[in-house]
């Protein structure tokens, strides 16, 4: 059983997710708590030690980003999966760089959400097609300037292929089949891309994300 904690300021949404997870994740997922505000969430996560925290990107008082940063800077080893209605590149990149291991939109259906939670619980990353698209777009520019880290600032050919298939709407299993790899290998590639996304200092990444915030 995976211990799941919910953080979202919309009451109705929490109710919906809970009933969906209870129905589709029976025997696999146990909801150990929920919070509607940042500070309460931080406190309760440290107290209840969930395996996976589903966290909303937009919340008053610092949003999911603050929850993730605060909890991860403490002793907790909870893993975070971000849920959002916003597809804005800036939000997505920010929450991933704060330490979320995945990002899905709130339109995701129940079964897929259960799978995503299981994937995050085992330490893998969850990429939606949109997030894969962002990665391809952001890493498509040639890295420039000083301090370019070859390994961190670019995608390998294999990683690029995996990202393209995910952007095309392929599930990990389908990606594995298409590239004649094991699912485990695909997961390793995705996790490696996630690490680059979180740790790369290439300034293009931040600039790219801000450029896409068009008012």
């Amino acid at each position: 059983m995976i211990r799941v904690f919910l953080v979202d300021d919309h009451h109705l949404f929490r109710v919906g997710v809970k009933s969906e997870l209870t129905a589709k994740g029976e025997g696999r997922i146990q909801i150990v708590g929920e919070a509607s505000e940042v500070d309460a969430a931080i406190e309760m996560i440290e107290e209840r030690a969930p395996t996976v925290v589903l966290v909303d990107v937009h919340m008053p008082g610092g949003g999911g980003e603050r929850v993730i940063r605060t909890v991860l800077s403490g002793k907790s080893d909870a893993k975070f999966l971000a849920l959002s209605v916003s597809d804005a590149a800036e939000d997505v990149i920010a929450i991933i760089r704060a330490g979320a291991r995945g990002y899905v939109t709130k339109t995701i259906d129940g079964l897929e959400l259960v799978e995503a939670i299981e994937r995050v619980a085992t330490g893998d990353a969850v990429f939606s097609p949109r997030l894969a698209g962002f990665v391809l777009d952001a890493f498509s520019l040639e890295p420039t300037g000083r301090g370019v880290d070859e390994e961190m600032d670019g995608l390998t050919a294999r990683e690029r292929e995996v990202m393209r298939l995910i952007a095309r709407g392929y599930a990990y299993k389908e990606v594995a089949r298409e590239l004649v790899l094991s699912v485990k290998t695909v997961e390793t590639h995705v996790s490696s891309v996630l690490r680059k996304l979180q740790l790369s200092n290439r300034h293009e990444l931040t600039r790219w994300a801000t450029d896409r915030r068009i008012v």
Partner: protein
Amino acid sequence: MSAVLTKRADEDRVIAGVAGGIGDAARIDAALVRVAFAMLALASGFGIALYALLALLLPKSSVPRRTARTRTEWDTLQVGAFAAIVAGMLLLLRKFGLWLPDRLMWPLLPTLGGLGLAWSRDDRSTTHVTTPEWASRLGPGFSSMLGNLSGTPRRAVARIGMGVLLVMVGAGALAASNGAFRAGRQALVGSAVLLAGVALTLAPWLIRLSGDLAYERRERIREQERAEIASHLHDSVLQTLTIIQRQANDPRRVAALARRQERELRSWLYGDDATGRSPSDAVTLGAVVHAVTDEIEATYDVRVEVVRVGDAQLDDRITALVAATREALTNAAKHAGVTTVDVYVEVGKDAVEVFVRDRGLGFVLTEVAPDRRGIAESILGRMERVGGSARVTSRPGFGSEVHLRLPGPPTTPPEPTGVI
């Protein structure tokens, strides 16, 4: 009248409401009472002791002051009587020796009195008096400023003037009695003391004025934003909600309308199409693809998820690519029996590619009836005429994917700039 029953004021208070309460009971401005306490405080702290004593003795008022009584005019007789009482107390205290040296005490008293006059807040001095029409046409900020200047009642002007005069007399006397005017060098000190006095006297009025202006400006900006949001919501969300109500018995149509509205609202809130780039420019591949997917969503009961990397300028070949994409989408929406179709558009260095993917029933290509010319003509034919290619992958259990490829470097659109 409860003039004898003095209570501590609940609202009109600085410390414990003693001055407010006395002012209320004696029908004089609380500011004058406060000044009186300040004067008495100079007398070796007598005022402070008196205040503390009264704060303990007077009961707290339970009636909100504003409903209890509204102070109207200054009652000259009352003010005079009050001043006489205070003066009497001061002389008495002087007699008993609770007194600072005369040369310090006498100039300080008119200074405090003047400040009290100028600071006593007559609410009417800030109320907005009707301004001429030409002034309001220049903007609310200006007209309110004018209202503050010209609309200040003459009585208030006289009050402030009196205050300034008293402060100047006091400050001057202070400077003179301390020998400031004796040396020429010290004349400067004297005028500095005078100026500081004047500035001090007028400070609350100026602070109030600039506060009013800033508030006015903030309100105006907020008002503009509110109007903009309201007009947008009216044109979009409200209209859609009206249509939805009228078609409430057709769930498919309602879902389609809701989806279209969601997409539109999203693009308004977050930028063009969630993946970025310029919203106004309809001559790019990205913009046209989004127009097509919107249309498909509105026509069929499906959700189209678009992911796009890069963008290209529209030309004949790109237009053909979009037409083929649209055909592939229509096919998926009509025949695959799914609720979601994924579209991936990638503008690379050596090709533009589009993938249309569904997880539907899938089919075996050779079994497609020859009369379904969609795939053969609209997709393959279109792509080949512009030098591209189309490949359809489909099998039961996997769904279908249409891969459209247009080789050659695309014309990249100019980076969005501030100039339109």
